[in-house]
């Protein structure tokens, strides 16, 4: 019971406080005017193109990164699964990007793509028609490209390790039986390995989707949310911390919270992911 009370305080209190704040117009720079506005903060949020732009950028980044990470992560997991000798060393090396703090990796990618000083432009300048001063952060798609690349570089190792654990659970005798029956490598992969790995894949995709949907730091560092690259978390930061609009920021936080809940529910119910058993 005491543990339950502590958990309730730590988990539920901030959520309930955010929900409560979202019904008020309240700003830190106008502390004497706290006005109950009902659902107005939600109406303003849903009625604004900035919200939908942030939602679109968030979904786009989530889809791109999760799909690419899944494919790359699976390939890396397959390679690691087949390599016998320095497997532990290999796993440690693969984990290096994931262990780097996002702020540090974000700045590193930012410097690499800087117009004047970044070495990417120096490498690509020999290509015909490519400017050696290309502005990677001056418009939407190049910015999204670099942001996604940074995310994929950092989080693919996490995905590959989750998938590697799934691969280890596939019954090797089934693979061998299929091979004896004359199945090609692709048939073994699609008919034996992948179906048996479905629970691990679903759990990995769920974790990464929830994580990617809350993207903030890389965007904050690279573009500051300019050129339509702001995410939902970035929008919440801007309203709550920058503008000190506590009510509006709380409403957006609640919306993000509900989005994350819906994604989790879709995976758990729709795709029948069993988080406790790792089976579907």
């Amino acid at each position, binding site marked *: 019971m005491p543990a339950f009370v502590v958990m309730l305080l730590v988990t539920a209190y901030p959520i309930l406080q955010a929900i409560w704040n979202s019904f008020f117009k309240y700003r830190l*720079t106008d502390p004497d005017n706290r006005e109950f506005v009902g659902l107005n903060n939600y109406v303003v*949020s849903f009625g604004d193109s900035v919200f939908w732009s942030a939602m679109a950028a968030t979904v786009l980044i989530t889809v791109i990164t999760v799909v690419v990470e899944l494919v790359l992560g699976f390939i890396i997991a397959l390679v690691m699964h087949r390599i016998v000798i320095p497997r532990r060393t290999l796993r440690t090396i693969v984990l290096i990007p994931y262990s780097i703090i996002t702020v540090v990796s974000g700045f590193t990618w930012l410097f690499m793509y800087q117009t004047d000083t970044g070495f990417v432009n120096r490498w690509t300048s020999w290509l015909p028609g490519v*400017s050696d001063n290309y502005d990677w952060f001056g418009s939407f798609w190049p910015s999204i490209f670099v942001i996604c690349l940074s995310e994929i570089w950092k989080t693919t190792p996490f995905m590959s390790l989750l998938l590697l654990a799934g691969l280890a659970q596939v019954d090797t005798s089934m693979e061998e039986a299929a091979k004896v029956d004359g199945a090609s490598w692709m048939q073994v992969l699609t008919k034996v390995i992948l179906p048996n790995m479905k629970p691990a894949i679903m759990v990995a995709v769920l974790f990464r989707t929830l994580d990617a949907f809350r993207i903030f730091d890389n965007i904050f560092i690279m573009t500051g949310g300019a*050129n339509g690259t702001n995410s939902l978390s970035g929008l919440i930061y801007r309203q709550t911390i920058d503008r000190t609009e506590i009510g509006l920021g709380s409403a957006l936080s609640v919306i993000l919270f509900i989005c994350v809940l819906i994604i989790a529910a879709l995976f758990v119910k729709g795709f029948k992911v069993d988080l406790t058993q790792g089976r579907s």
Partner: protein
Amino acid sequence: MESRRRRRIAFVAAAATAASLGLAACGSDSSSGGTTHLTWYINPDGGGSDPAGGGQAQLAKECSDASDGRYRIGIQLLPNSASDQRQQLLRRLASNDKGVDIMSIDPVFVAEFAEAGYLAPVPEDKQSTFTDDVVDPAVTNATWKDELYAAPFWANTQLLWYRKSVAKKAGLDMTKPVTWDQVIDAAKKSDSNVGVQASRYEGYMVWINALVEGGGDHIVENPGADGPELKFGLESEGGKKAAEIIQKVSDEGVGGPAMGSTDETTTLDMFQNEQAGFMVNWPYVYAALKGAEVDWIKDLAWTRYPQTTEGTESKPPLGGIEMGVAQSSSKQEQAWEAVECLTSKESQKAYMLGTGNPAARKAVYDDADVKKDFPMAALIRQSLDSSGPRPLTQYYGDVSSGIQREYSPPGSVAPGSTPKQATTLLEDVLKGDALL
């Protein structure tokens, strides 16, 4: 039994130690032995926290020493950008933090802090001390609704920096006031660039405001009004001309290869590396170029900020730092006494020589040491006197963010639509009908 007794003794000893440490901490917090301990939140200025670094940390030590033990000033370093400084101070002030006494505040945020009731008004007997012989725009920025809330400390302004050879090649007569159109044309003609700050940040707002002010108009026409009543001048003649200039710099390709990502540092790099023949920037660049020992330093020259409209005096940007005292401070009397020392003519001179940040007091510019280190001192003072401050409104953060959003990237700016879109957005945001 013995071990239980030992444990009890150890517990009592630990509790006594903790209690005494706590009491000692309390004692050193405010006043011990008649000395009041003040905490000054400073912006980074190159001097760091070194009491011999020539910055605010050094002034804190010197004024503490000169107080004969009445007060000692400790410093706390704020983040780099003005926006982050504002956020950190706001959070502390909103929580009634007793640990904040003196604050270095960007001039544009004085109104917001004062309106929220977070700043203590300057005591009447100190007002003339803080404002006599100070450039007018810095005093204007320290004043909110006819009440003085801060002491001008240093006042920054921008100049037009250029290379004599590039201007000569383009046939531009720099002995007379120049316009933005002339500078852009000259850069184009000489196959050079103009360094401007057009990344989506406060520096871009500084440029846009200077352009609008230079056109004889104001971004906010009734600065003291409540949010929904604010009137914007972006669609005025000055506002449209400002948008035309931004569009022209972008369209002519003279803003550099990544104009939408330029800030003060990148424009200085462009200028230093001879990619730009012209640049608008703060006076710190003179010391930076000298320090970098550029081989073309004799080709360096400066003049007044370009005119928006030919024949109308330019309104150079105004920056700097104002010094405020927190309303929540229980040591306001000593804090104002310290501010008096920190903003004295002697302190401002030392600070200008130590960090390159221009003084707010006019008399400093007549000093022989200052004239020697700053050959452009007279121009800085003239620019400060005739500068165009950014909008003085408690909603400055929203106004600035909204304009940055609509005017970014600079390549998308269109005089026929951008000023109108920005005005509509700001009106909606201030009515509470839109996000930023």
